[in-house]
């Protein structure tokens, strides 16, 4: 879809995983560089310009979080997707809080890693377009209303007066996975956990994109209008196109991992 070859950096201490990423990347026509630890990864980052990085949290030298810190310190603008075999809520939300754009728990299938990487590339593309756009023309992506909060860039939440929380998908996420073929929601009364998938968006290219729950809790209502018209989320992602209303479980604790909506993406 792009004339320029995409350039991916994969960092993991397991050679088998790096080999797998290389194979997948080659099949997709990407250029993939690999590093077995954070230090050699940082060396590569200084030498080349990468579009995206897939980084394991547990590395022999620095851990993945240290790698993110180091990138920020070096003032390198690189979108990072974190991955780990020890997939806990803490690891997931901490990754996003520290500036990773996405989180991919191990073990993953090819489709899962592909959907995450596609989203990553699309994200980078859209953000750079957004940045280069002249003021006044930036309306191509609608940011979430300022009283909302978001987890990463993908999902938003809004605390209602009665203490329940409304959850939805951001315009940016929808633009990234566009065009949408189907929306798979969970039934009422399901428990959702912050940082873990709470809904799936199936794109036209058959990739399935998980929506990370911004807050943990129990679903008390699902937006019925979406059943008849899934495109409602795209038309009005922040109001009519909400996904769930939930009763939050640990709101005060989890709020610290959320970002206010008035902050720009990728900063």
């Amino acid at each position, binding site marked *: 879809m792009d004339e320029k070859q995409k350039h991916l950096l994969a960092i993991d201490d397991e050679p*088998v995983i790096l080999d*797998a990423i290389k*194979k997948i990347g080659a099949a997709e026509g990407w250029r993939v560089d690999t590093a077995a630890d954070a230090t050699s990864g940082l060396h590569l980052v200084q030498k080349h310009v990468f579009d995206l990085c897939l980084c394991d949290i547990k590395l022999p030298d620095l851990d993945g979080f240290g790698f993110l810190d180091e990138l920020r310190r070096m003032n390198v603008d690189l979108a990072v997707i974190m991955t780990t075999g020890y997939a806990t809520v803490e690891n997931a939300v901490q990754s996003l809080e520290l500036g990773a754009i996405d989180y991919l728990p*191990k*073990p993953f299938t*090819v489709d899962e890693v592909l959907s995450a990487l596609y989203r990553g590339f699309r994200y980078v593309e859209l953000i750079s377009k957004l940045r280069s756009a002249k003021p006044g023309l930036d309306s191509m992506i609608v940011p979430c209303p300022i009283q909302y909060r978001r987890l990463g860039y993908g999902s938003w939440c809004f605390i209602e007066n009665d203490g329940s929380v409304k959850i939805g998908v951001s315009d940016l996420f929808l633009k990234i996975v566009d065009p949408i073929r189907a929306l798979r929601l969970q039934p009422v009364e399901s428990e959702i956990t912050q940082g873990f998938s709470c809904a799936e968006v199936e794109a036209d290219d058959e990739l399935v994109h998980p929506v990370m729950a911004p807050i943990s809790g129990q679903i008390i209502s699902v937006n019925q209008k979406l059943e008849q018209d899934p495109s409602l989320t795209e038309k009005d992602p922040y109001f009519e196109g909400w996904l769930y209303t939930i009763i939050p479980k640990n709101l005060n604790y989890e709020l610290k991992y959320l970002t206010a909506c008035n902050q720009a993406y990728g900063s």
Partner: protein
Amino acid sequence: MFSKIAFKLIITTSLLAILIFSGFAFLTIRSQNALLLDQVKNFVNAQSETIKNSTKVAMLGNNREVTHAIIRTIGQQPCIRQVRILNKEGRVIYAADSSQINMVVDKKAEACYSCHESNQPLSKLSISERARIYLPPGGTSRVMGLINPIYNEPSCWKAPCHAHPKTQTVLGVLDLTVCLSKVDREIKAAKHKMALLALVSILVLAIVLWLLVKQLVDQPVQKLLVATREVASGNLNYKVPELGNDELGFLARSFNIMTQKLTEARQQLFQIDKMASLGRLAAGVAHEINNPLTGILTYASFLLKRTKDQPEINKDLEVIVRETMRSREIVKGLLDFARQSIPKKIRTDIHQVIERAITVLENQLLLNHIQVKKQFSENLPQILIDPNQMQQVFTNLIVNAGQAIGQGGGTITITTALTRLSPYGIAQIRQALCPKGHELMDEQTRIDGLPSIKLKIRLNGKESFVHLDPIYGRKNFKSEISINEKDPVEILCPKCNISLIDKSKKCPECSAPVYTLEIPGKGQLQGCFTSSCGWQYWEYIEKQGPRDYIEIKVSDTGCGIPPELINKIFDPFFTTKGQQGTGLGLAVIWGILENHEGIISVESKVGAGTTFTIHLPVNLD
């Protein structure tokens, strides 16, 4: 016995009773004494009046012989000691004892003193003043003397003998002395009665008190004591029976509430501890399994995508992907479960578990020409273990053994046996605290692979550390300086410097200072660590006595572990296998055994092989 409440109460009350009784007796006997003596005085006075009157006629007639006869007769009465009549000059004129006649009595003598106290003699006196009680020289019982003045009367100066002039007031004195032995006997008897009464009362009082104290204090306190001992030895379910409505009853109830709260707190702690170790275990397993699973899943799903046109292969690949996804869910479940689950222990035949572990690894071992020798002891009892966790223990040990042997071939020997072990060298101290509650276990310094107990010592101003072997009774310790039994060593908590020395104790073997450590829930550990000794005493374990264990030895003929590494092998993330190992295998084993109250130890000789020995307690419930 002298410190018992009953004894103290009885002694105090008895002393008080004695005091009260003697005071009472003193007063009673005194008034009784006075009353008796008054009676005696009146009686003696009456007697003396009688003597006076009966001699009066004879004296008027100046008939001395008759007077003598009368006096003598009276003097022969049993209790009359002395009867005499003295004239004005103090000369004895008549006396029952004729040897006294014509003796002159000094004015200062006993009998005369009351009248002749002042220069002008008194002529009228009351009975009490005329009576005197004294112990005669050489006599054994008291006597009462009573003088009766003989006054001048008209008949005396008108008498034909004209013996006395009219102006004279007192003509002489009748002195009568009577023995008081009967009165004294009575007083003595009264005293005896009083003493007897006091004695009986005190005795009754003491018995009643003793019974009361026994019933109201001793028995409840005994019950409370039993309860505290039970609780101290770890039985927090023990309840003090109902002890009534008094203060001790309240104490018992509040004791029961306390133990109940302690039980709850302990269970929570226990649960937290279990959760923590299971969490560590799950994290380790997740790490270990998720990476290889990622390899399988990515490759398999990649192949699956590329072989859509080859239905046969595609179908098989689908199975691989599906099963790997299933494994992923299991691991995820394990991680989710980790926070709230404990090992699922069931009665299991340990041999089945070992066999299963061997079966899984058989092909791999055959490939490397490794032979597995099983030396299983027959009729081993079933034990309560989590078979899956325990299988992982043996799998990890066999894999390690295989790797130590390498590709050159060798033998792995697995031996099982039932042993009865004294707590010495088996019971492991997993937690030790200073009196302020600081943890003394040191994960960094390990002895035979187990975290040691770290103590600070100060000797002659120099500070150093001692690491004790956590296995009770092995008497091992590591010290930078050697300590002699007479050294004035201080043993301190490394965190708060509080002294750990029990001043009331000396090592029974070398009389060096003794340290005392709290083993939470399991009493106290005492011991010393001089260069020649290393005595230890852990009452909790000593009381348990020997326990039955199943002993499993996994030996290999591999490369062995160098002595400098043997202390590190149980550390999480320690590995000698580079990228091949996670460093979690033995740490996971250790965690599992900890959850089973089991023990693992290791012996190794470089070039000859390594033996891991596991002990699993039999009576585990």
